[in-house]
């Protein structure tokens, strides 16, 4: 088990374990991934953020062999995914977006049968299955039918299953989508534990909070391209001002308030009935708004987050 500092140092040594160069994937005429470059370093947690259809899942599928790149290069653990697919798959663990647990098998049996796909000897498989059930807090459910598990339990079992071969890299496609807050926090906590043990994690998410909580570095994807890359903090600093004032004026005075904010704030965005003003001095801006005498229902003052970066880069329109 490694300490946080050691993990950071390793990432600092920058040994890339997943490397994409001009990586492309098209389906018929549709380009899902349009030539992206990224590298994931050993021992870090690397995130792909983006709206639906941004190309995140396709990129993940290329990493674990469920999609074959149309062009460019992709190596995982130093191995080319096209020519050495079996070896790549042997060294990674996959948590898919959709539950595909084996419903014909009980909880522990799911892990044991999966272990055979990796040719683990039965003795080792039995030990690892019990350790992993404990790790994801499912020991009491070992002999339960999979279909009787809750959504959060199924996701944890998927995580345990992805770890049965003790992979160097764990690939997680939206690991907490559809989970309630308690279940989500438990998954986060387990993933942090994995990261602290030195596993490389590659995950997709569209929860900004998740990315901020877990990822050492991340990229924001949109329309098959990488819109931005960096650390969560670095991206906030680069793309938005540190503080945000959210105001909800009367519809009648919205335009007037917009004028005031545009004059005073560093950036203003309109989201439906609300105005978001980005600034480095929110109390000063608030005073200016009060001085203007324009009425508003409520004001929220908060620190800028990854969500603001995300919306800035990918727009506020609904993406289907």
């Amino acid at each position, binding site marked *: 088990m490694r300490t946080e500092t050691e993990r950071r140092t390793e990432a600092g040594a920058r040994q890339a374990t997943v490397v994409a160069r001009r990586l492309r994937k098209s389906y018929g005429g549709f380009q899902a991934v349009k030539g992206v470059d990224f590298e994931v370093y050993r021992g870090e947690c690397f995130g792909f953020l983006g709206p639906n259809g941004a190309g995140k899942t396709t990129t993940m599928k290329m990493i674990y062999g469920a999609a*074959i790149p149309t062009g460019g290069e992709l190596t995982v653990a130093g191995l080319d995914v096209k020519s050495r697919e079996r070896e790549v798959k042997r060294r990674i663990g*996959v948590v*898919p977006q959709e539950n*595909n647990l084996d*419903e*014909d098998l009980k909880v522990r049996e799911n892990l044991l049968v999966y272990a055979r*796909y990796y040719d683990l000897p039965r003795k080792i498989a039995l030990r690892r299955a019990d350790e992993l059930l404990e790790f994801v807090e499912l020991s009491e459910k070992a002999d339960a039918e999979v279909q009787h598990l809750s959504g959060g339990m199924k996701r944890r079992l998927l995580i345990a299953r992805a770890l049965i071969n003790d992979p160097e890299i764990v690939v997680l496609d939206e690991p907490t989508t559809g989970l309630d807050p308690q279940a989500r926090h438990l998954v986060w906590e387990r993933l942090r534990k994995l990261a602290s043990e030195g596993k490389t994690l590659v995950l997709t998410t569209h929860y900004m909070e998740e990315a901020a909580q877990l990822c050492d570095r991340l990229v924001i994807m949109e329309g098959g391209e990488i819109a931005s890359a960096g650390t969560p903090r670095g991206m906030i600093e680069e793309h938005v001002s540190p503080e945000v004032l959210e105001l909800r004026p009367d519809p009648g005075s919205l335009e007037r308030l917009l004028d005031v904010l545009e004059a005073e704030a560093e950036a203003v965005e309109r989201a439906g009935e609300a105005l978001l003003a980005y600034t480095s001095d929110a109390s000063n801006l608030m005073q200016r708004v009060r001085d203007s005498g324009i009425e508003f229902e409520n004001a929220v003052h908060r620190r800028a987050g990854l969500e603001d970066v995300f919306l800035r880069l990918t727009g506020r329109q609904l993406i289907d």
Partner: protein
Amino acid sequence: MGAWRVPSPRGTFRVWQRNATIFRKYWKTLLLPNFFEPLLYLAALGLGLGTFIQRGGIEGQSYVQFIAPGLLASNAMFAASFESTFNTFVKLKIQRTYDAIVSTPINAEDVVAGEYLWAGTRAALYGTGFLAVLAILGAAFGEPLVRSFWALLIPPMLLLIGVMFSVTGTLFTSLIDRIDLYSYYFTLVVTPLFLFSGIFFPVQDFPAPVPQIAWLTPLYHAVNVCRELATGPSPGVLADVAWVLVFTAALALFPIRFMRRRLIS
């Protein structure tokens, strides 16, 4: 796109083993219907209809004796067909079991080959039980239904027949995306084969082109082999075995190619 993929024996075995594990848990409930169905046919047609055509018999045998070995072959066809259609579809599209398997060192081609082998195994298991019942019933009623020690070769033959019908069933599965389309496969392929492959009446006595058409279809040869093994084979049976082998080998790689395309984009 892509080369023709050849399955790895290790991966094939692992997929077969997964199915065997599940079968071991549920074999009693799984085995029963497949077991009763041919018995019902035997009772209704052999004993019911048989009494009306008993006098002359067919090819020197009573009617029950004539149809029993053919039912062994059709039983293998049905077992493998259900396995490679509905069961495979559920694992492909509904439970997404194959997606989970192909993200391990097992490849799509291994999945399909493992399913072929499993369908054959299941056909052989069912058929062996059925063969035992035939032997016992025949002895009990003083009208032997299995009359040769060559019948010991029937179970391995049923395995081969099962693999053959798994290949055709998987081919259909690899081409459809709605489960209700299987009614076409069963109505237009499986049922006609069942009725016109020489199980219930000898087709070679019909005028041309009926025997020629029968020769082109898979169950006809499977029935011939089972009947010959049950009564004591002639050298001509080797031609039927060869037909089954060639047909199976010639088709086997197509579903592999198509299923791979469904699993890996």
